[in-house]
């Protein structure tokens, strides 16, 4: 018998629960690190900068911004651009999210109804979603182009030449609608796919029981399908709200915020303040307000639409 086995060192032994907790902590560490480094720190940094005079020269010289007595916020509230931007943002988000949900659900129901070629349609339908946003914007700009665009031509042909100057992006009353159409084209496919997966998880036995009980299609849809899909709908709509709140490339490329600022949303205003005016502090102030508004909207939505466990 050797001495090493005779005098065995006592092993450090943790309680099982402590070991499990440490193990969980180690597993979650990368996620925590990513969240802190790439989300929490930049958000805090941005909020701090929103209270300072912070311009490009601060980036170059490494000098911190100077506290400027809420001047960024005061200028924003007095400048006359903030409230129209808030209204345009809310209009865009509410309009697109509602239309996106209705269209997505309608398409999902159609694709779930045993339609011949549904798998093929589902594949083709995803194409707009995989097209880069900038390319989508350019394609729609070409379609909407007022002098030689496809839509102008189509409207002219359909109306027999009665409407020959249809220009959706040139009219301040319709420009946001034009951008919304492009946003819907791009976003509806993913919504449809997610809702379709939710639809396919609605238990058939419940639907069959309801059919035997004589429930109409509408009754089954609203009393069984929708409640069973609540958690999927909740996620889909939350994602859509966030996606459209932060929609920038589509709007900037298609209209640059015009005409007459009619498509200037908070995203566009933030970009203009930070990277066109080169006033990063003011841009951060818009971003802070924008983030707060988004948090409120998502919180209200989550409160109104609390998912229930159907089981």
């Amino acid at each position: 018998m050797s001495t090493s086995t005779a005098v065995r060192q006592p092993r450090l032994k943790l309680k099982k629960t402590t070991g499990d907790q440490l193990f969980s902590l180690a597993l979650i560490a990368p996620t925590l690190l990513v969240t802190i480094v790439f989300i929490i720190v930049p958000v805090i940094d941005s909020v701090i900068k929103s209270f300072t005079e912070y311009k490009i020269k601060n980036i170059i010289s490494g000098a911190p911004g100077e506290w400027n007595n809420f001047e960024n916020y005061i200028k924003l509230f007095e400048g006359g651009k903030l409230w129209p931007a808030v209204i345009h943002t809310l209009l865009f988000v509410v309009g697109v999210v509602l239309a996106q949900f209705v269209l997505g659900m309608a398409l999902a129901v159609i694709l779930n109804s045993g339609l011949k070629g549904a798998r093929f349609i589902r594949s083709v339908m995803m194409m707009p979603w995989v097209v880069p946003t900038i390319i989508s914007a350019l394609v729609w700009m070409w379609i909407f182009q007022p002098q030689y665009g496809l839509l102008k031509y189509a409207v002219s042909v359909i109306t027999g030449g009665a409407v020959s100057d249809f220009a959706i992006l040139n009219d301040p009353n319709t420009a946001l609608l034009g951008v919304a159409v492009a946003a819907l084209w791009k976003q509806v496919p993913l919504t449809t796919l997610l809702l379709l997966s939710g639809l396919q998880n609605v238990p058939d036995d419940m639907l069959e029981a309801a059919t035997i009980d004589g429930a109409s299609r509408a009754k089954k849809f609203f009393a069984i399908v929708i409640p069973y899909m609540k958690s999927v709908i909740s996620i889909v709509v939350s994602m859509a709200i966030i996606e459209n709140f932060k929609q920038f490339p589509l709007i900037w490329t298609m209209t640059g915020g015009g005409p007459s600022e009619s498509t200037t949303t908070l995203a566009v205003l933030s970009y203009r303040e930070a990277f066109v005016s080169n006033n990063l502090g003011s841009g951060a102030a818009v971003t802070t307000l924008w983030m707060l508004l988004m948090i409120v909207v998502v919180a209200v939505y989550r409160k109104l639409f609390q998912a229930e466990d159907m089981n």
Partner: protein
Amino acid sequence: MKRVLALVLALCLALSLAACGGGNSTSQPAGGSETGSSAAEAVLTEEITIKFANYALLEDGYTEFWEGVKSGFEAQYPNITIEWVTAPYGEITNQVINMAGGGDMVDMMFGELDWIPTLEDAGLTVPVTSVLTEEYLADFYPSVLESCKVGDEIYGLPMYISPFILYYNKDLFEQAGLDPNTPPTTYDEMLTMAESLSKLTTADGNPVYPFGQTTASVAVSGASLTGMVYNFGGTVLDENGQLATGNQGLKDAFTMLQTLDEKGYNPQNAKLKDLRQLFATGQLAMYYDQSWGFNGVSSINPDAASFTASAPALKGGSGDGASILQGQVLLYMDNGDLQREACRLLTEYMLTEEVLVDYITNITPAYPAKQSMADMELNPVLQGAAGSIDNLSSAPFVAAQADLNLELCTLAQAVTVSDTDVDTAIANFEKTASGMVG
């Protein structure tokens, strides 16, 4: 075993993330401590790399010229290497700023005249007088250098220039019964001619717009609108860079835009690229553009040279048709005497007739910025507007120039697509733009 494996994977992820954030700048140290004449001697012998930020390398048609500059210069100065720093047009300033923020500053940059105030305000660029001699700069048109000033210093050196000039379609003029060799010289003449031109249609029945002035929400449209204000003898900023919206020229220019819109003469809310497309396809009889805009026209219609001619900007109100300078400029950063000296050699190599002639005659039609190159061959379509160079006004810069330009577009859209009266629109412009100046 599974736990150990999961832990190792998590550790790898965490370590790889930490590694992502640990990059150090690999920039070379600033170019030495030599000063004055010692730098001039050292630049001929020491190994030097010029970091040159240039978006044009990524654009079709321009790469050959710039690679030719690199190979020609490096052959002449074998100890100096040009290292390109590239990014798309819209991203190059952010690229240069971010690099400088990370301690890696480029030595030179090729860019737009309108980028000067942003880069000067950022403390990135140095006056060109700290790179080039007074004697060398004396060869440039004084009005051209004046247009590159921020305060009393010149911060950019134009490689080639153009005011906003009037391109017109000689064939359409002829079809409308107008003399194709007599373009309008005033806005009133233009309106008279527009009446005839507006009756034309293309072969496939599309209407012909008589006149094009860009008003879409992009910064260059704002620059073009500023040029139009100068045509009327007006101004947007006074010589101190403060808003000057009370002048008659500014009001006259936007009243003219409203008139053009009411008559349906000007394509609404169009970008320059839309106007080029319309002009190239015979749907636009005349329009304002930078000289190199013809490049875009001829890329759509290779026969465009056969029907295109140019003329100086129109005179309006009490104005004399003055325009503002547009140009592509060289900007310099301070990485030490040796680097500046190398930039001087590169500049002097590039801005010669021998190197530039093909580029500004055929590739990007423009006018030379140097007086000694005044007699060089021009692209034939630019001949009609050649006198424009003598009627340039210097528009003052502000740091938020690009945003101010966008605000001018909003003003133009207010009097056109939004049907706001001119006085109200100017008052609204003053309110929003006042926060951008001073």
